[in-house]
Structures are given as C-alpha cells and as structure tokens.
C-alpha cells in the first residue's frame, strides 16, 4: 500500500473519520459526514509530505487524526514502526484488499479473518489510538502542530513567554531556569527578539504570531510537526519569511513535516512528496517533481491548471472544473470525482478505483489507469490527458 523507500517516521493505515449528523427525535444519528474515508499515508524521517486539496476535503482532519487530537472511526497510526511491522502490515492490508471485505468489518474469507485478527494484535501493541494516556502524553512532545489561524490559536491572556513555555512546563522539561533559557533560545530561533517575550499576542502582526506558534511547537524538540495551512492567513512577503524559517529548522533539527495547504505553489516549494486529497480520499500520491511535471489524475491536472501564474506573458490551456465539491455527507458513488471529471467514463459512477502504483512511486486512484492485467479494464488511454502541468 505504501512501499515508500526510507524509514517511515509515522504511518497511517486506512484512516476513517465519520462525524455524525444528529437530528430528528432524540437527536439520533441520521447520517455521517465522511470527512476522511480510508486514507493511508506515511511520513519519512526529516521529510515534508504535502497534503493538498480544496476546502472541506478533509486535509485538516487527517492532520489531527495523525496526532490523535481526535479519535478515528477506524484505522491506525503507527509512530516509529519497526521495518518488520511495516512489512507485516503491508502484506496484511494487501490480503484484506484482495479479500474485498467491507472496511472495518469481518473478512469474507478465512485468510481475511486471520489477517484482521493479526492486525488487531499489532494495533493493540503499537497503534497510537490504543495507547495508554501516560504513554500518549510522552509521545505528544514528539508530535506537534502549528495551527492555521495565528489570531485564534494563541491565548490572548498569556504572555508570549508563557505561551512558548507552556509545553515545557506541562512536560516538566528541566528546572525553571533551564526552561526560561530554552524559551529565550526558541524565540531567537524563529527570528523574534527577547524583548518580545513580555508582550501579549495582540501586540504582534500575523507573521510574528505565526512565529510564536512555531516556537511553541518546537519547544519539546519534536520529530514530527503538522503544519496546518501555516501561511494562508499571511501576506506573500511574510509568507516567504515563515517558509524560509520552516525550511531552516527542518535542515537544522531533522524535522519531519506534514504540510497541509490548498496553495499548490507553496506546497511545491516546501515538500518532498505530495498527496492530493479529494472528498476524504487520496487520489494521487507522488514525489513533488513527479507530481507537478506528470500529474496523472484528472483532478490533479485541473487543480494544477487552475493555479494562476504570476507572469502575464504565460498563457496556458486551463481545465475549468464545473460545479462545486459535493457534500461529504452524501459522497457520489463510485469514483468521488466523477461528477466533475472532464474524462468521465461509465465505470466511474459505480466502481471505486483503487489506489495503484502507475509509475514508480506514483500512486493514482483513477479508472483511466487500470491495474496491469486487472479484470474489466476499460480502454486505456494512450497518453494521460493533455498534460497541463507547467512545462519545465
């Protein structure tokens, strides 16, 4: 399922998060918003994984799930899985996939049932979601997040010193004087002045506040940081400052990032690999260069062609998608993109395309790219749709 070369730092398998819609008599559950529906992802050590998609596609939910800020409906996340575990998990999940079992329920065959049982055992041992509270608290220091809105993610009643020092205090990291020293260090690291420590968040501009948020995330020397649209509330000139700081910190401290953004050019500048999400599912995953030079999924192609380029001399053919993103409470059947897809085929409306490796380390979930030798393959297009990725 993943087969990414390198040592995974954190891997998630088949994450699902359904938010219940309550209504009617006694506010019973009348439906689900399928925010995340079967997402499998991994982040390597000191790597940036970009997660792209339109608003409401479940990017942020994936980020929160991976840190266990919210509990998933099903699926598991493993932090620092051993290579043996990874290989075992891979084989178990591929057994389940060929078993065609409904997600999360019992396997259809004997092998399927056995696989499920073993998965459960592995999960009990290593999964983030089955960990005891004390163990989880230890890990929290290693898994951090920088929030989207720098205006609402900092307490207005705390001094910057206390905001940055709070994680240290909670985790009892060192004596008081050591903590103070660490805070001063952090402030320098993100490019603020020591005198800023005695100020309140409202005295700062958006860019400076985001720096405070980053300093807070860095306090406990984490290994993995989820960056949830860290620059979308900022101006371009300030955005560049923040992105440069993040890159510098990654190089110095071997951090792994998950960079969540809807802004594709920023993602390209930041990430090593990119995963594209649409309506709670990953539709394409590849190395950044590969994805941007050869986008395979029609959605990715449309997304790439929709980015305005800051150069009036360059005009290019653009795929304008029709309509809006469908509601995740009632996602379309089959391929979820088929309602807006410019290359829609009859298969798309009833069969859900699996995520398969079409090129090396380039995973796509689309009927245009049938699995080699798979049954019921529609006519394969000789060429992926008119490639609109910027010609490099």
């Amino acid at each position: 399922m993943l087969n990414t070369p390198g040592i995974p730092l954190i891997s998630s398998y088949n994450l699902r998060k359904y938010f219940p819609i309550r209504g009617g008599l006694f506010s019973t559950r009348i439906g689900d918003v399928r925010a995340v529906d079967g997402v499998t992802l991994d982040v390597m050590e000191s790597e940036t994984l970009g997660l792209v998609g339109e608003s409401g596609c479940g990017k942020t939910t994936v980020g929160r799930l991976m840190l266990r800020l919210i509990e998933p409906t099903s699926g598991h996340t493993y932090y620092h899985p051993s290579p043996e575990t990874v290989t075992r998990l891979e084989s178990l999940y591929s057994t389940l996939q060929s078993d065609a079992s409904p997600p999360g329920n019992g396997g259809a065959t004997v092998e399927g049932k056995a696989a499920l049982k073993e998965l459960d055992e592995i999960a009990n041992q290593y999964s983030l979601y089955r960990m005891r509270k004390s163990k989880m608290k230890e890990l929290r220091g290693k898994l951090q997040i920088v929030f989207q809105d720098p205006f609402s993610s900092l307490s207005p009643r705390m001094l910057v010193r206390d905001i940055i020092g709070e994680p240290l205090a909670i985790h009892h990291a060192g004596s008081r004087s050591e903590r103070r020293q660490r805070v001063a260090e952090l402030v320098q690291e993100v490019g603020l002045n020591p005198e800023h420590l005695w100020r309140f968040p409202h005295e700062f501009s958006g860019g400076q506040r985001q720096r405070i948020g980053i300093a807070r995330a860095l306090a406990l020397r984490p290994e993995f940081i989820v960056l949830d649209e860290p620059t979308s509330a900022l101006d371009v000139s300030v955005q560049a400052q923040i992105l440069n700081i993040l890159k510098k910190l990654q190089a110095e401290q071997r951090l792994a990032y998950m960079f969540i953004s809807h802004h594709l050019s920023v993602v390209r500048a930041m990430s090593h690999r990119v995963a594209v999400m649409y309506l709670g599912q990953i539709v394409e995953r590849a190395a950044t260069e590969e994805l941007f030079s050869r986008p395979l999924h029609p959605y990715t192609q449309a997304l790439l062609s929709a980015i305005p380029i800051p150069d009036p001399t360059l005009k290019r053919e653009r795929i304008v998608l029709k309509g809006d993103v469908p509601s995740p409470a009632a996602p379309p059947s089959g391929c979820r993109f088929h309602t807006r897809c410019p290359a829609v085929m009859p298969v798309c409306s009833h069969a859900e395309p699996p995520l398969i490796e079409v090129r090396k380390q380039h995973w796509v979930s689309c009927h245009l790219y049938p699995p080699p030798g798979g049954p019921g393959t529609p006519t394969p297009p000789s060429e992926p749709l008119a490639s609109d990725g910027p010609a490099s």
Partner: protein
Amino acid sequence: MAAVAPPVTLPPELPTEAPLSSTPTSPATTEAETTPESAHAPVVLDVRDLKTYFFTYDGVVLALDGVSFKVRRGETLGLVGETGCGKSVTAFSVVRLIPDPPGRIISGKVLFRGVDLLWGLSTEARIKVDKKTGRAKIRRSFRRIKAGLERMSAVRGRGISMIFQEPTQAMNPVFSVADQISEGLLLHQGTKMVDDLLGATPDAPEVRPALEALVETSHGNDLDAIRRASAKVGEAVHVPSFETQAFYLVRNSELSSEDLLKRLMRSLHRIRISRIERSYLRRRRRLMEIDDQLHEVYLGEMREGRVDRRQRRILRGRRTRTRLAGFYFGIWGIRGRIQKPLKDEGFWRTVDRLEEVSIANPVQVARGYPHELSGGMLQRVMITMALSVDPVILIADEPTTALDVTIQAQILELMRDLKTRIGTAILLITHDLAVIAEVADRVCVMYAGQIVETARARDLYQHPLHPYTQGLLASIPNLERPDKKLSSIPGSVPDLIRPPSGCRFHPRCSYAMPMCKEVRPPTTLEGAEHTVACHLFKGPLAVE
C-alpha cells in the same frame, strides 16, 4: 445617468476650510493639468490625490495619502499590496462607503466620466486636530453629508457597482437570492420592466399556437428546440422574461402534454394585468421616471459644481405628489397582491441573469437563501447582482480570496468573459499577484496608503522598478523553479498612525539612501505608462 457624460470642464475649486492642515502629512505631489489621452480609450474613472483618514483614539490613521490612478473604458486595473496598505479603503472611498465615524475622505478628486463624486466634501465636516494628543475633533454637517450620499445614489449601481470580499457576509440572510438581485434590477431597469408588463399581450391569437408548438418540443429532450420554441412564445406575448419562465417550465416538467399546456396557460396569468395592477404599475413607473430625472440633476450638479435647487425642488415636489396620490396601494393586504406581477417579473429576469453566469439550476438558486449556497455559488450571485445593471465600472474587492483554486479559476474565467461581453471597466483589488497577472491589463502597486508603482501588467512583471514590487514578486513561490530560495521583505507593514518619514518603504528597503528618510519621492515616468515613486529613478515627473 442614461446619457454618457461628455468630458466636461472640471468643477471649480470650492472654498475649502483647509481641512487637517495641521496633520503630519508630507506635501503631496501636485498633479494639476490633464494631459490628453488621445491614443487610448476614454478614462472612466480618474482618482486624483485621494486622502482618506481614520480618526481613532490612538490618533489619525493616514490610510490613504495621496492616491492617484486612472481606469479606462473596458480595461482591468489591478490594485495590489499587502494587508493594511489601503486597497479596500481606496475602493470604499471611490463609492463613498467609508464608515463615518471613524473614517473620512479628506481631500482629492474622484472623477467618474467628468463628474466629481467628492464634490462638496470639504463643506461636510470641519476637522480640528489637537497637536498634542493627535486626536481630532470633527464637526459634521449632517444635512450636507446626507445630500452628498443622496447624490451618490445617481452613480452607485448603474455607474459603479461593487463585488465584496466575503460573499457570505455581503448578502442579506433574510431575503432570497431573487429578492436581492431583483431589487437592483427594479431600481435601475424598473421602467423597462414596467413597460414590458404593460405591453404584454397574453391573449393575442398567436400565443396559443406558440405554446402548443413549445409543448410539442418537450418530448424531444432537445434543449435548443425548447429554447427556440420558448423564444417564440416570448415574442408572442411581448414579455421577454416569459420566455425564461416557459423554458424552465417545459424543461423541468414531467407532465403529460395536456397538463403541461394547462400549466403554461395558467402561468400566462402572471402577465395578465388587472385594472388595479395596471394603475399601480403606471404610478410606479412615474415615480421611477422622476427618480431617474433626479439622478440626472444630481449628476449635473456634481459636474457643474453647483446645486440646482430649482430643478430639485420641482422634481421632489412631483415625487411627493405621485407618492401621495398612490398611497392606497401601500395598504397592507392590497400591497402584496398588486405588486405580484412586478415581483414575478423581477424573479424571472433574475433567473435569466443567473443563467448567464453559468449556474446550472438558476430557478432553485433564485428561490434559495444565501445560507443554502456554497461560497463559489454565492460569489457568482454577487457578480450577477453587480453586473445585472450593466455598470460602467465594476469594483471587485478580493473577489476570489475566500474561494478554492478551482472555483477561483471559474470566477476569473467568468469575469474575463463578462468584461469582453459587456465592456465594463474593472478595478480588481487583490493581494494575490498571480491573480492580477491572469486578468489585469495595468497594475498599481500600493504600499502604506500610497501608490508606489503603476505599469502595464507585462512591464510590471518583467521589469519591476520599485524595490517593494521587486520584493513582492520575488517572495511568490514560483511553480516553475521551486528550488529557488524564497526571498522575503524584512519587517512588516508600518503603523499608519505614525508612518515613516520620507519614503514610507525606507525602513524595509535594501536600497535605502539617507535621502529616502527625508523626502517623499515624487512619481516619475520611466517608460511608457510606467510610473514609479522612488528616489532611485530620475525620470521626468509624471503628470497625471
């Protein structure tokens, strides 16, 4: 406003009471004479040395400090800059929507086709600034402010209309989409709507065969055929909007032919005007005419620079008399009933307009309320609202900031399409340089309440002159060359209560010279239509 105002002599300078002479402003560059713009399309909006200040407890915020630019017919002018540099304030100043208090336009000219929209401004309020505290005391003349706002009603809508940043917040949540769009239609095209209704011929002999032909086409599922047949129906009854209604009735119906014909005949009732409705419509039309004449008078006043009290009195008197004569139409219980034809007409015209912005199911959208629609859809509705009256200038204040890239692409495509079709001049305000590159013909770069560079889009992106523009362009992550290290502009936007002296960019500028701290750089001309305000450039002074 119907007639195109000829380029007229500017209104004479009014005796000003030297407003705000004590505020710490640098002497503005004087841009006096006009140069003939022979080679280009006529200038529809000419903003000169506009100053808008906000009077707060902390002091006077110099939000706009001498902004000048021009918009020509059919052109898209982009206005870019960081947050808080005064882009939106510029837009709001042009249509005079600055909330007062705390904001006031202090001086300057906004010439819309030779009509000075800010005429009479200096008489509206007297401002005294306490030198010690920096606070201002403002004495307003509410009568004059009201008169000024009333005059603006002649320009808003048909002259200058606006798309706001947050579509969800700009719409009224308690009225349906159709109500909100048809309100504008009624205000600006009301006489035409009434004329159409009064001239309807629902009982003409050719209506029945046309309807039968339309019903025939309903089996074929051929949209073009239905459209053609419904156009015939529209012609037969002499009401264009009935065509839209007939089209959607037939397209969405699953009725049998007979039922469909019955349904169509029943819908004809909408344009069958009863006697009381007719007399209401006539009176309503009279009122609309008088309002239009009044607007003409206001425009004339702003052009000539003096109040035409006589005309005003006559028209206002006539308006009051007409209103009084028709007072019984306002009685609750009658009102709703007699307004029905006009309301329905507005609804179907709205549907027609919504179809133009490629909304898939315009009838449902028109019936719906703002909360039922997605952001992209609402932005389309806003655009429809702004463009439904064919404005001369459209001000789009960050129209795509709240939207996703795919929806943004749809909206930009739509705006470009509408521009070529209607020929509206667009003032596009955004912080996204890439969006500007996609649609703008010329670009103004703003920094801290001043325009620092103006150029054709192509020139600006290829040869940015001002250090700020260069910094902005270099800080965009480039999709083509992602490995390049992003350069950023150090520091952040200055506090506009105490802006930096001299060139406002000098604390962040890497080329800063001692001179920059002292003297505000004049706007100089560097190449064709390329002006820049920076001491690094020594071109001839740009004469606006």
